[in-house]
């Protein structure tokens, strides 16, 4: 096969992939046109210079460890976009609805051997995966969001719950759950119609959002049921949040055909504690408390502690 050097060099420069060759001291031995274009650094300027001089972000234990492995064992190192997002901080090529700060990249590294088979260099191949990541994010958002209200859906809620529980288990951080349910929702739908019911659902979430922090997970659990996972939060603080929620929703005015109607919610609150050690138990606790709130008049907040006192 006629693969002499001039063709190889052309291939390297035409490829829509970044190619960087480093020696044992991490000095750049070669860098292709894709790299020149996206970095703005011509080959002449970077040859023989340690890559960390231009890209200090690479000088981290993980990158160093894997390069060492490559030089020692001749294995490969795969850098996924998932964990790294980018390897070289380059600008995205085209705009995307997600406005990534940097081009999303994945890469692979492999050894290059000399005449006698010893490993002389390592080669890093970089791929621009921004477009793919955009699609992925879009799909994820669609899969996680409730269409009507725009907040998270039940699927995502259960995912987050597992994650928060894991954090709690690992670091012993407090975790609370608030569940609320719109009072007499069926009645509202029957008297005002389903479109109005939808309007109420949306308005309730709008009223609730300011009561929650960005680290909290707010999701629509069922038809008129909502959940808030509150990490790093004890029951007392969770009760305060719950009360604030209840109040915000109760005091908001909802317009229907020139009349103002009120909507209220019943709220149940629980936290992980001695008796509550699984996601299911946490839900059940809050659910039982919610049920109690409904039974004892609605438009109120009940916690698992209240339940214990009653039983």
């Amino acid at each position, binding site marked *: 096969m006629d693969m002499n050097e001039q063709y190889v060099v052309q291939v390297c420069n035409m490829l829509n992939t970044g190619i960087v060759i480093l020696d044992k001291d991490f000095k750049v031995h070669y860098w292709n046109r894709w790299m020149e274009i996206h970095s703005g650094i011509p080959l002449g300027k970077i040859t023989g210079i340690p890559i960390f001089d231009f890209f200090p972000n690479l000088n981290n234990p993980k990158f160093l460890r894997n390069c060492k492995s490559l030089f020692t064992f*001749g294995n490969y190192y795969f850098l996924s976009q998932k*964990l790294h997002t980018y390897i070289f901080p380059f600008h995205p090529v085209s705009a995307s609805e997600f406005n990534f700060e940097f081009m999303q990249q994945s890469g692979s590294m492999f050894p290059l051997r000399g005449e006698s088979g010893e490993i002389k260099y390592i080669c890093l191949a970089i791929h621009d995966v921004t477009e793919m990541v955009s699609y992925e994010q879009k799909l994820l958002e669609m899969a996680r969001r409730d269409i009507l209200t725009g907040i998270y859906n039940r699927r995502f809620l259960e995912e987050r719950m597992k994650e928060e529980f894991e954090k709690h288990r690992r670091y012993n951080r407090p975790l609370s759950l608030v569940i609320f349910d719109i009072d007499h929702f069926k009645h509202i739908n029957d008297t005002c119609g389903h479109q109005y019911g939808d309007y109420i659902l949306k308005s309730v979430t709008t009223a609730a959002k300011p009561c929650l922090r960005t680290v909290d997970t707010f999701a629509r659990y069922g038809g008129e049921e909502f959940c808030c996972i509150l990490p790093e939060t004890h029951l007392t603080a969770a009760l305060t949040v719950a009360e604030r929620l209840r109040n915000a929703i109760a005091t908001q005015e909802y317009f229907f055909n020139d009349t103002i109607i009120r909507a209220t919610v019943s709220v149940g609150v629980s936290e992980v504690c001695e008796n509550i050690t699984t996601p299911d138990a946490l839900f059940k606790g809050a659910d039982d408390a919610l049920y109690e709130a409904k039974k004892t008049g609605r438009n109120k907040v009940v916690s698992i502690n209240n339940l214990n006192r009653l039983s």
Partner: protein
Amino acid sequence: MTSSNDGVLNELEKDALKEIINIAFGKAAASLADVIGLYVILNVPKIEILLPEEVQRFISAEIHESKGLNIIEQYFIGKIKGAAFLVLSYESSKQLISLLPGEENKEMFEFFSIAMLEQETVTEIGNIIIGACVSKIADFLKDFVTYTPPRFIGGKFSHNDLPQKIFDRESYVIVLKTIFQFENRDISGFLFLVNSFESINWLKQAIKEYLKQYGYE
């Protein structure tokens, strides 16, 4: 292929292979200490000669663990060709993250789920351990191998099909099993290397040369 296992390797060859692997793994462990900064012990390898369809049962039986497992699967192609499976319990995997030196862990937790970080860590270490062991064996054959990206599998070992282009259903494979332990004895796992029939011939060649040194022809 109907000949018995012993037709593939005789007792002496098996012993020689075990010793070759033992030496290869000893070197791998020493290099690993250097690369990942952790003390690793790679134990005596167990060698089995099986048909591809028997591999899953063998590995599952060796693992004994019915609870959660993290498995890294990687294929390698050189004179020796085959698959590597690195198996760690959930518990060992969790402890592994905290053991890795110099990790920028704290901030990572803000952006990534714990599950993903564990997955990444196990995959990275798995990739390196597999690379260490396979490359040292390849060294004996004066060969170097190419690798596929490591694949992370969570759950249990239920590998039904080994890829057709590497494993011929009719031919035997050599399975090597090693237990590895990290500094902290609670972190341990298994490494299984499944080598295809073609590899067996190359290995036999290397064994022959090794035995020559000791007067066995």
